[in-house]
């Protein structure tokens, strides 16, 4: 069950979106590694969804995508479409599976990066942009996914720390604590 978006959460997500976009355009994009720049924005969207749920993830994805398109003067609606789906998907993963494994942010971050790059390329080709599929494009996608996966854990840590205080207490976490200390244990009910 996902967290309901509140005013505090919305404010923090908005601030996070602005910082992420400015950081991306001002610093990260200008430091290519192996010819490819790290893309923080799909990671932030995915982790917002993973932290706050599908609704918050979808809205955050739409907003961050729109902000990216406006800032970089790209085709309006393209990035927001892809990020909406990423945020929603990450949120649904959290609502259905609630993964708490340490590698979850790594896998989710990698998947988000892959979906973002592949989805963007597919949409651009579908829109008729003259960008023939080539080995170089494939190389950039693969390297980009690898780089984003590497930075996924630190980004997750920052997003989690920033959003955690504004999120309500997770009932399932309370139930787990109760299960181990007593009170709500099935044995106590018996």
């Amino acid at each position, binding site marked *: 069950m996902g967290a309901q978006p509140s005013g505090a959460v919305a404010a923090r997500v908005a601030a996070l979106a602005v910082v992420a976009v400015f950081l991306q*355009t001002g610093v990260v994009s200008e430091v290519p*590694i192996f010819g490819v720049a790290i893309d923080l924005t799909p990671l932030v969207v995915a982790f917002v969804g993973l932290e706050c749920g599908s609704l918050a993830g*979808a809205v955050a994805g739409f907003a961050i995508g729109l902000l990216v*398109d*406006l800032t970089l003067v790209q085709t309006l609606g393209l990035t927001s479409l892809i990020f*909406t789906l990423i945020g929603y998907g990450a949120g649904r993963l959290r609502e259905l599976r609630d993964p708490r494994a340490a590698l979850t942010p790594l896998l989710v971050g990698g998947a988000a990066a892959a979906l973002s790059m592949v989805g963007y390329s597919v949409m651009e080709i579908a829109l008729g942009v003259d960008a023939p599929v080539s080995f170089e494009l494939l190389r950039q996608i693969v390297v980009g996914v690898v780089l984003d996966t590497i930075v996924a854990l630190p980004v997750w840590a920052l997003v989690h720390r920033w959003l955690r205080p504004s999120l309500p207490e997770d009932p399932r976490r309370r139930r787990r604590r109760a299960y181990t200390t007593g009170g709500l244990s099935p044995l106590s009910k018996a």
Partner: protein
Amino acid sequence: MHDKTVRRRRAVLVALVALSLILLTAYFGESPNGRLHDVQRGFLTVVSPIQEGANAALKPVRNLFGWFGNAIHAKHQLAEVRRQNARLRAQLLQHTNDELAYKQLLRLQHLDGGLHLADYRPVNAEVFSQSANLWYQTVNINQGSSAGVQVDDPVIDDEGVVGKVTAVASDGAQVSLITDSAVAVAAMINETRAPGMVYPKVGDPNTLVIKYLPANTSVVVGNYVVTSGTISAKGASLFPRGIPIGQVSYVGEEAPYKSVEIHPLANLRGLETVQVLTAVEGSAPARLAKVAAELPTQQSSEPGSTEAGSAGGGGQLASAGGGG
């Protein structure tokens, strides 16, 4: 309750996706001056100053990351620059070799067309005796083999061609003048470059003749005759190209050839100082002299009836214009 949550979630998703598609379609379909483009430009106008400020504030961070990135790139760039350097060095060496080969070919070309004074090592010599016999026009000079003088070395003075060395001693040599029957010089009319062979006129030590000039050769009295820098037969001398021999004093029409008489420029009866053009071992004239030594012997036996081996220069060594 659960259904309501699910419906709301799906509705929001559908709404956002639809909105994205509408934006995408509208933006893609409109002109660059459309409303959405204007909104985008307006947003950029508002955000640009903030972005510039943020970039300036984040510049140290960017530089730090850039330093790491450059350090990672540096090794690859160093290898690339080294490869490029090696490639350019090889090209430079190739070009230098090509340039040297070109210059050598150019020198050979000059040699084929005629030797130049720079190809020789001149040795100054004084004339200490001269033959009085009209049949044999020779002088003796005070430089010999000890000074590098060799048989067949050309001899000139400041006026022009004098003759060639025909005998050598250690400290002296005999020079046969161009008016001697043993000497034939490959020449050309300076103004028209028409080639010919210069021989002495029998019985007249002050006159030379050019034989075997084609009838249509343009030559007039006053034209200068110079060496052509080639040889036509064994025994002929390797005179550098362009050394004056004489001036045309008479042009006669004797079909199918023209008969041209030349007055020699050098004062052959009052020689005092001459210059022997010796060939340094290994130089172009020396190499050419060795090749010339293998040419067929000139077929001339009687004075006054000197005939060159062949008018067409059958044994001509890289003639500048053929014929002779």
